[in-house]
């Protein structure tokens, strides 16, 4: 690569990092937090004995997982206004990503709940707990440990997917890269730089996962 390209990459580093800090990361964090709450509800619906509740959750999950995120973003941002619902870019992105995370994480949480041995439910009932209390005090804490690795995968996917938010006017890492690319006409170099930053973010997140797992392993190692 030429020297001027190196200079460009260096000059654009701060704008890209700025995009990550003010766009990518808060967007991912907010969507993940909301998505997780949604996912927990959906997972419990899926596990419910009431068929209709379970079916609703199943259809939701199926649609979210069966359609491209890009399309989901467009429907919310460009489609809802035709029904009179106009949402700003940031809320739109958060809604879309939360809905998406909800669908994916719901299956993770459901599987994690199912992976807790049945004997744990029985011991909880035996000491007199209600279903709800058994769930919150006994089952979910154990399911949490099991779901850390798959959920952190979901989170890492989300971080990368936030690049799609550039399509609905949210300024984040990838959008910054596109802007610099358009100005400098060096889009290859800029995209590689963006990729590198995404990679760094994911590496940091993965090591965070390791720490979290170690913390949780204190309680449930064999």
């Amino acid at each position, binding site marked *: 690569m030429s020297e001027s390209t190196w200079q460009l990459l260096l000059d654009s580093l701060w704008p890209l990092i700025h995009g990550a800090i003010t766009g990518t990361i808060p967007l991912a964090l907010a969507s993940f937090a909301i998505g997780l709450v949604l996912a927990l509800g959906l997972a419990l619906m899926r596990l419910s004995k009431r068929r209709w509740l379970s079916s609703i959750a199943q259809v939701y999950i199926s649609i979210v997982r069966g359609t491209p995120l890009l399309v989901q973003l467009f429907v919310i941002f460009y489609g809802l206004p035709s029904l009179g619902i106009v949402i700003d870019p940031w809320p739109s992105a958060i809604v879309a990503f939360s809905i998406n995370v909800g669908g994916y994480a719901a299956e993770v949480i459901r599987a994690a709940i199912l992976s807790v041995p049945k004997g744990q439910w029985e011991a909880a009932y*035996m000491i007199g707990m209600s279903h709800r209390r058994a769930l919150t*005090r006994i089952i979910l804490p154990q399911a949490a440990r099991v779901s850390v690795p798959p959920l952190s995968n979901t989170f890492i996917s989300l971080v990368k997917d936030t690049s799609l938010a550039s399509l609905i006017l949210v300024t984040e890492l990838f959008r910054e890269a596109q802007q610099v690319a358009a100005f400098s006409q060096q889009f290859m170099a800029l995209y590689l730089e963006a990729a590198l930053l995404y990679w760094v973010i994911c590496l940091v997140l993965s090591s965070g996962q390791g720490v979290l797992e170690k913390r949780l392993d204190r309680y449930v190692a064999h």
Partner: protein
Amino acid sequence: MSPTDQKLLTVRGLQKSFGDNQVLKSIDLTVARGEVLALIGPSGSGKTTVLRCLNGLEIADGGTIEIIGADDATHAPVTIDFAAAHGSRAGVPKKTLGTLRDRSAMVFQHYNLFPHKTVLENVMEGPVVVQRRPRAEVETEALALLERVGLGEKRDSYPFELSGGQQQRVGIVRALALRPTLLLFDEPTSALDPELVGDVLRLIKELAAEGWTMVIVTHELEFAREVATEVAFVDGGTIVEHGDPKEMLRNPQHERTRQFLHRLLFPF
């Protein structure tokens, strides 16, 4: 036979099917206060299912369970009529089911301790969170119980740090801490290393000597002979034969009982 009202536990005509598989055809049994009933029988005969019905973990399809409280003045007998409930959890009044659970406590074959809680937390969870007794009082009692089974030092350990025998002793303490009327044991030593079996059996024997009322599913015939006040042989969903342990284990009346005992006592 003594009149029913003197019995702590009375089960009449208990039935339970899983799909087409009628596991319990008609189980009748009674246990008086301070008695130890040992249930023996082949694998799959329904022993665990009986215990689970007694602890409300399983809702029977028919029959009745009556259990009286620890202190007759305050604990009136509670009776569940499963025929009326049509085998559905919704059919049994929640309060009645709650009382059944309160009065019985189970010790599981695979301990089923809560892996994310310390030994002490495992023991205190029921009394504090469910029964809402004062934490300080419960802690004193729990520690005393743990000391008694030789695990006082392990109060802050997690279950995975304990041997199987230690875990099972915690399981027993967890059940005792609930102050139940009736203790249920489901093969409490069959998951243990042979050398660790003794600790648990000795503990159960002590509890029996102290007058706890118990129902124990076990394959340890020696233990049943020595500790139980009554043995019942379960097969094909009914109690085929029951009686005094020493008498029955030596001289079973039914052919099926005979066969079963022979297989266990003379395996080769």
